[in-house]
């Protein structure tokens, strides 16, 4: 996103050349920050700058366009424009402020000039991920076309646009219409009203395309496919221009979104100055005196609030101090926080820090103009803050990621991140806010307690590796496909020609048959299929859930509207896990309690009321996998890795109330009143070779669980020889899921896992074994609850005629699947490598690990058993590391091969 383009043109760019460098360097920060530090806790990395690489404008552009431009094009801009000239689709994946907007703006200008010369029109559909960005970019584009001296009308058309005449005028008159995908989904219903605009459409822009991943990404992919159908109907065949933050697979991701080939432009020709990157792990908390005891505050986000073993000062306390300190030293600083509440709190804490250290900060007013910024503020207030940042009137801002995407606030001296933002892509986009032109910049990452934060703090090189996460978007989810198919039929009759273009024929025919049987579609593919269900199927699409079963989030009766959390509707899977009755949730930094959940009405709802509790809630989950069918497999050494589909039964049956301060449970085992959830989804699983299993069972056979409360051994397995090995699988399962976001743009909350000593009993049974096939299409046979499913699994295990394989499953926790476990299947070695590092490098020194390595608050088995060493052994062997080879010796001596293995499994 390049909102700074126009600023370049109209000369508002700050031209203060008096300071060559950032006001504070990394080393100066370490020297001046008023506190003793352990050297091990901080690393300073140097990232070199980059020279500009430009191409003269007149080599690329016709004179009318080249003339008015003050600066030459960067090489990547020229390359992208050349590709567009050759009728290619493009994806530009370069840094923040590298002039991506200008590429499509110039292409629009070229198209319009050419069309006008022929006496025709040319239009462009420009799609942003948020409405705020749409308004911002409307201004930027208009300003840019003014500079070019072109009369090109750019209008926003979205949910905030006045209905009626205004909309009609835009549809009929605008050259460029700016909208978002929720809008496109809706407006396709009335495509005949858009005929003028669509039939002359030469360019579709998908800005910030990397944001379209997971469930949202697949909806967007289908909206684009529907849009293309309608465009084709009106005789338009536009090019696509996508712009993306730097991601690992821009070409693949873009092609998956638009179902066409895409030329990737990722050689960044824009200049940057050198940058210092400080990884700042907060110091150990002073336990007794409480001088750093702002610990009454929850962690930064839902995920962070979970720590039982908290040793370091939380990032939410440490980062505001850095913000305060840097501002004091004349560095205009932008602090990124994970929530609105923390943005507000950070500003207060920054000033508290000044007062607490008044001897050091002798002049309390120096650099003290610091404001919060987030989407909860009014538009006027936000514009005011943006303006004061741009003009230098503000010394610092604490902001949510609302300032990560595109809004034009000029450039800062320094960024501070309160916690690792979870993705390298996002990390780079945020720190890209620091750096004035080619001068030095400083960025500080304050690590939180979470697994990923600690991984990054301990492995600084991770951030500097050239690879960035792959963005995962997947169109294999049939539930999502089927819903968009209804919309497509409503928009234009489905015909044989849609086979191949819209969906592969067999899939299309099956989906059509399904809906005809359900009375939602009518007709035949030869002659045309129409939608005949309730009006406007587009309205029932939620761009954030896979099924129509989504829950509206409402405020309890009598609660003031201003407490409205304004949440997107929730997918059923999320409601059952996180929004059961009695759950206490943080949303955008505000705390809510769920007071009612209505599962049964045609329009299911979750009702919230604001609360101020000193605890949060954590569900306990039983999971099992049934009827998994392998669709693909591959060997990794002597391991076998599978990808396939299966049924996952999830039961979030009880929950605990946990103290915010120390993570201690206050109340345990409260009922959620949830129904069990059964999803049919995608999964991958790893089978460990028998010899390794025997060796590890032998090596760790002494391991046992301390059965503190005496009732933990419900299955009578605490003493089994397999427990240490099972703990290794369980730990490896947690760790591989935990680090998946280091390699892939996946949301850990959408993944689940199951470690098992008997993979075979979770697979679909062969015909004949136990007399039945697994599914056979009769829904009546599937177990209705988790207990029954677990019993089934044990029963199958007992009936197996051969020794089963052991290993672990990773599944997509969303009905129909998201492509996440598929991506993990394809990148398993890289994920395993990260998991190994995480476990081996953690300095907790405990056999069963800590929350920063293998413990997981979503664990269905209370994080037992876990065995770090055994997990590292398995991963070493998988990765072909030497220590893995040595295990064979143990195996040879093993005498436990004949032990009957218990059918243990842990989620």
């Amino acid at each position, binding site marked *: 996103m390049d909102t700074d383009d126009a600023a370049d043109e109209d000369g508002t760019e700050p031209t203060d050349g008096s300071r060559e460098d950032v006001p504070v360097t990394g080393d100066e920060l370490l020297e001046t920050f008023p506190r003793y530090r352990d050297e091990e806790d901080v690393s300073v990395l140097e990232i070199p700058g980059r020279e500009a690489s430009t191409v003269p404008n007149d080599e690329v552009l016709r004179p009318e366009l080249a003339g008015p431009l003050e600066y030459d094009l960067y090489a990547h801009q020229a390359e992208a424009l050349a590709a567009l000239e050759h009728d290619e689709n493009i994806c530009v994946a370069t840094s923040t402020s590298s002039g991506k907007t200008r590429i499509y703006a110039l292409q629009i200008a070229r198209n319009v000039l050419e069309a006008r010369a022929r006496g025709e029109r040319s239009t462009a559909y420009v799609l942003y991920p948020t409405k705020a960005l749409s308004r911002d970019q409307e201004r930027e584009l208009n300003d840019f076309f003014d500079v070019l001296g072109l009369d090109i009308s750019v209008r926003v058309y979205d949910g905030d646009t006045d209905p*009626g005449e205004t909309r009609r005028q835009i549809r009929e008159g605008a050259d460029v219409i700016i909208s978002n995908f929720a809008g496109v989904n809706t407006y396709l219903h009335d495509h005949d009203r858009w*005929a003028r605009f669509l039939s002359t459409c030469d360019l579709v822009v998908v800005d910030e395309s990397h944001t379209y991943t997971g469930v949202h990404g697949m909806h967007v992919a289908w909206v684009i496919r529907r849009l293309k159908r309608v465009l084709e109907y009106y005789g338009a065949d536009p090019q696509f221009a996508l712009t993306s933050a730097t991601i690992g697979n821009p070409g693949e991701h873009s092609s998956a979104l638009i179902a066409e080939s895409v030329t990737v432009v990722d050689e960044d020709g824009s200049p940057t100055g050198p940058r210092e990157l400080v990884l700042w792990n907060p110091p150990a908390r002073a336990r007794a005196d409480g001088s750093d005891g702002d610990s009454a505050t929850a962690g930064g986000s839902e995920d962070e609030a979970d720590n039982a073993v908290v040793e370091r000062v939380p990032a939410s306390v440490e980062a505001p101090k850095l913000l305060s300190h840097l501002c004091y030293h004349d560095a205009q600083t932008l602090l990124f926080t994970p929530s609105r509440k923390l943005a507000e709190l950070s500003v207060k804490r920054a000033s508290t820090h000044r007062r607490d250290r008044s001897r050091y900060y002798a002049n309390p007013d120096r650099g003290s103009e610091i404001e919060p910024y987030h989407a909860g503020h009014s538009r006027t207030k936000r514009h005011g803050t943006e303006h004061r940042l741009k003009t230098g009137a503000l010394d610092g801002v604490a902001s949510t990621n609302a300032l990560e995407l595109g809004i034009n606030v000029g450039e800062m001296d320094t960024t501070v991140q309160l916690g690792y933002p979870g993705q390298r892509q996002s990390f780079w986009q945020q720190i890209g806010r620091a750096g004035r032109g080619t001068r030095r910049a400083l960025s500080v990452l304050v690590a939180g307690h979470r697994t990923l934060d600690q991984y990054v703090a301990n492995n600084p090189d991770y951030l500097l590796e050239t690879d960035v996460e792959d963005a995962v978007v997947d169109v294999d989810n049939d539930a999502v496909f*089927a819903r968009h198919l209804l919309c497509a039929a409503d928009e234009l009759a489905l015909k044989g020609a849609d086979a191949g273009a819209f969906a592969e024929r067999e899939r299309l025919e099956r989906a059509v048959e399904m809906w005809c*049987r359900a009375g939602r579609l009518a007709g035949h593919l030869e*002659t045309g299929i*129409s939608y*005949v269900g309730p*009006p406007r199927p587009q309205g029932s699409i939620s761009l954030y859930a896979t099924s129509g079963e989504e829950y509206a989030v409402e405020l309890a009766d009598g609660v003031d509207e201003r407490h409205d959390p304004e949440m997107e509707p929730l997918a059923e899977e999320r409601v059952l896990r996180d929004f059961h009755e009695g759950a206490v949730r943080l949303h955008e930094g505000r705390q809510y309690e769920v007071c009612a959940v209505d599962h049964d009405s045609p329009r299911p709802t979750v009702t919230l009321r604001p609360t101020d509790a000193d605890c949060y809630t954590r569900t306990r989950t039983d999971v099992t996998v049934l009827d998994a069918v392998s669709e693909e497999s591959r060997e990794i050494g002597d391991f076998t890795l599978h990808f396939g589909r299966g049924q996952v039964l999830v039961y979030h049956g009880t929950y605990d109330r946990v103290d915010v301060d120390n993570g201690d449970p206050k109340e345990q085992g409260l009922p959620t009143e949830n129904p069990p959830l059964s999803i*049919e989804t995608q999964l991958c699983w790893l089978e460990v070779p028998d010899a390794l299993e025997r060796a590890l069972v032998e090596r760790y056979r002494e391991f046992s669980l301390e059965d503190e409360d005496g009732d933990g051994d419900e299955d009578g397995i605490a003493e089994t020889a397999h427990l240490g090995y099972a703990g290794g699988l369980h730990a490896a399962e947690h760790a591989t899921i935990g680090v998946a976001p280091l390699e892939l743009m996946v949301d850990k909350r959408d993944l689940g896992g199951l470690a098992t000593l008997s993979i075979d009993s979770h697979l679909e049974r062969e015909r004949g074994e136990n007399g039945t096939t697994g599914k056979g299409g009769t829904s009546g046979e599937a177990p209705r609850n988790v207990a029954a499913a677990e019993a089934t699994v044990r029963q199958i295990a007992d009936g197996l005629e051969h020794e089963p394989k052991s290993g672990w499953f990773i599944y997509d926790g969303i009905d129909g699947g998201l492509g996440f476990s598929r991506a993990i299947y394809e990148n398993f070695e890289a994920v395993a490598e990260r998991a190994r590092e995480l476990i081996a490098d953690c300095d907790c020194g405990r056999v069963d690990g800590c929350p920063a390595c293998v413990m997981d608050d979503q664990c269905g088995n209370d994080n037992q058993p876990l065995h770090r060493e055994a997990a590292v052994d398995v991963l070493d062997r998988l990765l072909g590391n030497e220590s893995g080879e040595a295990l064979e010796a143990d195996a040879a001596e093993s005498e436990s091969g004949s032990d009957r293995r218990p059918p243990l499994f842990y989620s």
Partner: protein
Amino acid sequence: MTNRDGARLLALPPSAVLGRPTETLADVDTTLEPDAVWLLGPEREARAFARTRQMFDAPAFHPPLETDGEVVSRQPIGTELEIAVVRSLRALRASPADVSSALSDSRSTPIAVVCDDVTTTTRPTALETGLEGAAELAAALPPGRVTTVLTSGVPAGYDELWHLAAETGAIRAVEHEPQLECEPAGDDCVSVRVRGAGPVEGYGGSASLSVLELDETGVTAVDTYERSDFGLEAVAGIGPKTAERLADAEVTTRAELLETPIDKLAGYPGVGRDSAHRMHRHATVLEAGEPRRLTDESLPAESGRPPLCLDIETDGLSPTILWQIGVYDPADDSYRAFVERDDPDDPAPVLEALCDWLFASHPDRALLTWNGWRFDYRHLGAFVARHVPYYVEEWESVPKFDLYDWAVREGHALLPGRTNKLEDVAGALGYEGAETGLDGAQTAAAYQRFLRTGEEFDWGRHEAYCEDDCRALWHVYERLRDAPRATDSSDTSPAEAEGATPSGTTGGEQTGLGDF
């Protein structure tokens, strides 16, 4: 109201009975004149059933309460017909033979079986739709022929023919157009024609009542109504809450509403003077069966030559061809149909013929449709632009009017008729139609079959259907033209007439769709 040869079965959900005033149910009874009332299962609703039996003259049944110690009971519908009512799938599972014997009774074979547990189950992740109860039906129903099963488990209008393996109930195939062709699939197959009577999701809430027209062949037609089409709520501006308040004041019928003075009505909470007037006016319209104009606005194309009344037939709701375009010219009482009979792959000739004729012979005439902005004009515009682009400009310059839009959405008139379907409105205004027994969906399906198979097509019947709609439209237009304008009527002050425009219809069932 149309087909009196057969019998009428009213399908009534318990929610439409409980908590509704007696008078509203009486209005349902007198308006729909059922020969039998089916209080829908599968939930057992004893109270609702007692009330239903009390309120309706016709015999009533409620499957969960049809005990008599039998799994199946027989229910006469009118004088000639009979249906078999099954208590539940569970009962059916327990003794399938009872149903078999009931159905093979040679003295009188029931025309359908009612079972409210039968429903479809869709699993999008597997791209499969199954039939709940398939195994039970396969075990109980006779193989080698088609049995109609009526259920509230699927919406009214649902009509699919499921061929089930007689042995197992496994799905062999599903025919999607049994209204065109309904044959059994062999002696080892139980063929079940499942027809819905459950609530239909619509634009404004749910149409939850349906009337099934039956004859000895089964179901011949299904009409749906909303709860609010009856009683006081049929009056625009009276929702459930207002109806409740009025009921507290012992105003429960439209006649009583009309007897209540405006001043008094206006005094009730949430009513006010304007809406009190509005209620009176609409109640009068409904009671008298006479339309009423609310403004001084002239009818579309009222001066000069009358508009041409137009109606199109397509091959589906998302059409690939507009295969029939009918135009009735009231000026000389002539009707003209443009029909594609020869090359159904090419949508252009019909459009070209229409345009040639229209621009050559009637260059200055306006067009009139019923709900045309949503359908006829919408598709005509798109098809003209695509297939006869040289006529686009002329087409766009033709004055086009939508009588439904003018009356209902713009709020210039009130119409009698319980729904806003042209057939209903025209019927309430005394129009006697041609009774082709068709509707738009059937016509579309039939034409699609002609497209696919080239089989013979009953052109006469389908053309008569289109012509009937054009003439019905003109009938409504004439009745509206003859209705007095706002200022002509005695109980309306000029000030009210001004204020009576669109806002007058934003409540109640006359609301149109929001603009997008």
